Structures are given as C-alpha cells and as structure tokens.
C-alpha cells in the first residue's frame, strides 16, 4: 500500500475525499493540507439528513497558508451516513464483542462494510455484511487501490471508534472521510459544524485503522449468496423480536423453518414446553434466473426447509434493528445456514447464522 503523504499530493487520488479546514478552534492543533492532527474526542461532528444539502465542490490548488481566502474548500455531502451510524451504533451498543469492522473499499463500486464477530458466544463466527453503493452516499469518491488490477483497499477498524465519530456527526453540514497516515494509518473524519456566526467550526476525528494486506483479502470478501432451499420475506421484525425474546427464556435453540408458500415457523422445544409461532402470507422473493434459485425451483411449495440455530444469535440480529428496512428477507439452506438480508434504500445488511446440531 503506497504511503499516504497528503502534503505533497494535491490531487485526490490517494484519499477518498479532502477537506480544507477553516480556522479551527483554538484548542485544536494546526491543520494544513494532509496533516490534520488529531483532536480529542468530545467535539461534536454533525451530519445533515436533508437531501437538499448544498453542494460545493472545489479543488485545492495551493498549500494552505493559514489564510482562509487562499484555501479552497471541498465539501462532501453524505446523505445516508446517519443510517450507517444507526446500524453501527446499534451493533456496538449491543454489548457484542464485535472486534473489527472491515472496510473493503471497491473502486467506484461499492463500499462494503463487513462486521465479523470473532469471539462472541461460540467458536463459530457469524458474520454480518453491509454493502452499499458509494454513489448514493458520497458526492465525491476517489480511490486508488493497491494495484491497478486490485483497485481496492481493505481496512480494519474498531467499531466503537468509528461509530462514536459518526454518532457525533449527526448534524454536520458536511463530512469527509479520508484515509490518512499519521503515526499509523487513520481514517480521518472531518466535519463542518453549523454555527450561529458566519465562521464555521470544523472538527476532526482520527480513527486508527489497520491495513489488511492483499494476501488476506480472500477472508473478507463479500459473502456469496448461498444456494438456498427457501427464500422468504421476514415477518415484521418487531413481532419477531418480541417472540424470540420470550423464546430465549425458554430454550437455547430455535428452529426456523419456511416454505415457498410464504409460511414461516419459529419453534422451540424443551422438556418443559414446546412453542411454535406461525407466520403466514409472508411472500417469497422472486429471485429471477440466477443460479441460486435452481435448487428451489422444483421444490414442493408446502415442504419446509428448516435450520436449528443458537437463539441468542437470532436475538442479536433482531436487537440491532433501529432502522426499518424497506425489505427484509431470509434464505434458508436446509440444516446448514440462515442467511438474513435487510435492504434499506441503497444499503444491504447481510447476516449469516450457522446451524447447530
């Protein structure tokens, strides 16, 4: 991975975006192009939710001299970052040991955010994958990856740091995220805050990241959609959550089963009690002609595919729902895996829960 020395690089090729800072508050260290020093957490960053945010795109042509007029400002607008914030916040406040978020930045295509819990609850990791199209998120998106034939960057970051920075950016006029190099590689998040006066305030977060070397990238690819047996839309997540919360008091394991008739059952069974919740008329997503549907095409619509999972994992998935998805669906590979997919506008969140014996 090339060195990231922005002071010498005027163009935006090595960073996702750049912001030139306005005069910073006195207790913030000096900033200049590429050498944004860290400021302590506690500053508020804000992100606007309004899609009508004014865009301004200008490119810096000179080194900043401290004179505001000679600096040219480049602003970004991130319309949906609050969604990412909400999801990340939800995951990190779930008391789940999510060790890492991996940002896998594919050139001009997608920003893929993969949450992997390495240690939570059991030896088997389950993984969550969020994919969103950068074009819907960022006004400006520039990337230069590792090599021309591998135009990607793969970063590992602690969710808490990132979510804290994003959370405090709720009402910023605009936010920029860039990959920088301080003492170590950092995701630098710079936000401009609205103020009452004409002089705006800029806050910077430096979030240390680890750069994942290319040889390990295969571990972090967007997971392939498995060959599922049944695909079905999920029932209202609130209802599911209420039911699963209660079932967790009664049993450690739950069986989820569904068929192509839009029926899904959640079942638990112990020595003391058996409980089955029946959802009907859920609908099955029409997957079209891709190969993964092959298995399910000749299937008897009445026959259920089922998988037995650790109920806490399903509960975690349901706990993280603070944003109502526009579509929520589930693919079941009989006795193997449950693949849950949430779509919200242009963000997809995928969640895999492996079967237990």
């Amino acid at each position, binding site marked *: 991975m090339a060195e990231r020395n922005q002071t010498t690089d005027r163009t935006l090729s090595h960073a996702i975006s750049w912001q030139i800072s306005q005069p910073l508050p006195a207790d913030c260290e000096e900033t200049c192009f590429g050498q944004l020093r860290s400021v302590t957490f506690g500053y508020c960053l804000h992100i606007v939710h309004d899609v009508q945010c004014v865009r301004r795109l200008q490119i810096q042509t000179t080194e900043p001299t401290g004179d505001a007029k000679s600096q040219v400002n480049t602003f970004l607008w991130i319309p949906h970052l609050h969604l990412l914030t909400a999801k990340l916040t939800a995951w990190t406040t779930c008391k789940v040991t999510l060790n890492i978020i991996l940002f896998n930045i594919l050139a001009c295509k997608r920003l893929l955010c993969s949450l992997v819990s390495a240690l939570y609850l059991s030896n088997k990791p389950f993984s969550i994958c969020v994919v969103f199209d950068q074009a819907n998120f960022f006004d400006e998106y520039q990337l230069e990856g590792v090599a021309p034939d591998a135009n990607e960057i793969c970063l590992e970051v602690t969710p808490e740091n990132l979510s804290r920075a994003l959370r405090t950016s709720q009402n910023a006029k605009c936010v920029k995220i860039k990959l920088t190099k301080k003492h170590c590689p950092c995701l630098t998040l710079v936000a401009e805050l609205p103020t009452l006066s004409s002089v705006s305030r800029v806050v910077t977060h430096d979030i240390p990241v680890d750069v994942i070397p290319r040889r390990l990238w295969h571990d972090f690819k967007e997971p392939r959609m498995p060959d599922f047996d049944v695909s079905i839309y999920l029932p209202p997540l609130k*209802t599911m959550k209420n*039911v699963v919360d*209660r079932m967790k008091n*009664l049993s450690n394991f739950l069986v989820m089963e569904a068929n192509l008739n839009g029926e899904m059952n959640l079942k638990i069974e112990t020595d003391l009690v058996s*409980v089955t*919740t*029946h959802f009907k008329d859920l609908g099955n997503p029409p997957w079209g002609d891709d190969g993964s549907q092959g298995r399910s095409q000749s299937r008897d619509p009445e026959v259920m595919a089922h998988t037995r999972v650790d109920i806490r994992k399903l509960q975690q998935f349901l706990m993280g729902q603070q944003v109502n998805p526009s579509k929520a669906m589930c693919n079941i590979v009989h006795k193997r895996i449950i693949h849950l997919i949430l779509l919200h506008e242009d963000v997809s969140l995928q969640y895999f829960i492996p079967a237990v014996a």
Partner: protein
Amino acid sequence: MPLSTQSQTEGDNYVLVASLDNVRNLSNILKAITFKDHAIFNATPNGLKVTVEDSKCLQANAFIQAEIFQEFTIKEDSVGFQVNLTVLLDCLTIFGGSTVPGVATALRMCYNGYGYPLTLFLEEGGVVTVCKINTQEPEEPIDFEFCSTDVTNKVILQSESLKEAFSELDMTSEVLQITMSPSQPYFRLSTFGNSGNAHYDYPKDSDIMELFQCTKTQTNRYKMSLLKPSTKALALSCKVSVRTDSRGFLSLQYLVRNDDGQICFVEYYCCPDEEVEEE
C-alpha cells in the same frame, strides 16, 4: 375467530377450554403471584383459581371468575393440574409485554385432562403461537384454616398509600410487624432494620380507611421475605383487606381491576413468625 380452527386437532377431548380476547386479563393477575416456579391450577364451573405456595408458610391465590373469560367450558366439577408458572407467563406474553392501544393478544387455553400438556393458542395480528406446557400432578394446597368467623381484626384500605409504604419498607428488617387495635395506633406497620425502626400508622378515621373492625389489640410479626412478593399484588389493586385471626395468621385480600374494568381477587395467607407477641 381464527383460533377456533386450532382446537379441531384436539378433538372433543378437552376437559377445560377457556378463551380470552385479551390475554392480559390473565397474565397480569398471574404476575402478581409469581414468586415461585410452580403453580397449582384448579378450575371449577365458577372459574379459575391459581395457587402458589412458599415453604408452607405463605400461600397466594388468584381468582379469575368464569365471567371474565369470553368462553369458559369445563366438563368436570373440578379440574386440577400443576404447571411451571414462569414458563406459562413467558408463553402468555409471547408477543411481548407492552401494550399497544388497539392491539390485543387473544388466548385460547385447552386442557385434555390428566397426563396431557396444557395447550395455549395465542393470536395477535394474524400471527398464531401454539404452546404446549407439560403438566404435573397437582399438589394439595395447604388449608390455612382461616375462618371468617374467627377473624379478630379487619381493616379495608385503599391501596394507594399502602403501596407507598410497601415500596419504602426497610428490607434490612427480617420481619414486618403488623399491629391492629381498637385504640391507638389502630393500624401500624413496623420494621426493625439496620438503620433503625420505622412505623407506618394509619388512623381509623383516615380517608383511606374504608372499613375498620378491630376487636382486640394484636401485634404479629411476619417474615419480610414472605410478604415482599405481595407488593406485586398490591401494585395492581385498588383496595386491600387485612385480617388477622386468633392465631395471628394474616389474610391479605386484594381487589384488582383488569384492563376491561372487571374485578378479580388475589389473596395472600401468611403464618406469623415464630416469636409471636400477643398482648
């Protein structure tokens, strides 16, 4: 009602079928007596009685009359079984405990008799949950032999101010002492804790005192750990009657109004603590 189709699988073998349009009319009352895992259910044509006991010294009963249910059919004079109450409550509240206005969970409870599980059908918004809870042979509830003819002292209070007192009770006190007397202090609750003694006095002519019939001065102590669970019943109630008999046994009867304004009763019986002081 969608649930009616479910009972076809059970055939006509049920000995008890009870249906409620709003399951909270049952679950809320049961929460008021959930301090032990197991509960004894006894159904008669009059309704349902649920009993929970603790260490042979405390007994709580909840009465839900047949009229409260939208359907209450019983094929025998008396149907009894024992179930795990915590499990039952988790099942009754399977769709969540919170109330959303206009949305109620309906319940149909079926029991086929000895050896069969208790089957619950719960429905909310088109989603149906079926629960089968294993039952056991019911134990015989203790008869505390509390006779209304033997009642020495009786008061009926509005629950509001007793709720305050009970929520503030000094839990470091091992006992709760109840003094009832035709003269001062009339009705007194006392605790003896680490920080000191506390007394709550309710004069007989106070507004909250609806009935005051005390014939003899009595002071009795009851284990705090036994009486503390009664706070849940108190919280639900609008009135409570406190009675003691010549042996010092305590009877607390709570009048509870459910979501639909109907009346149910919860009662607690408690033995006095070993060192009984009778003046």
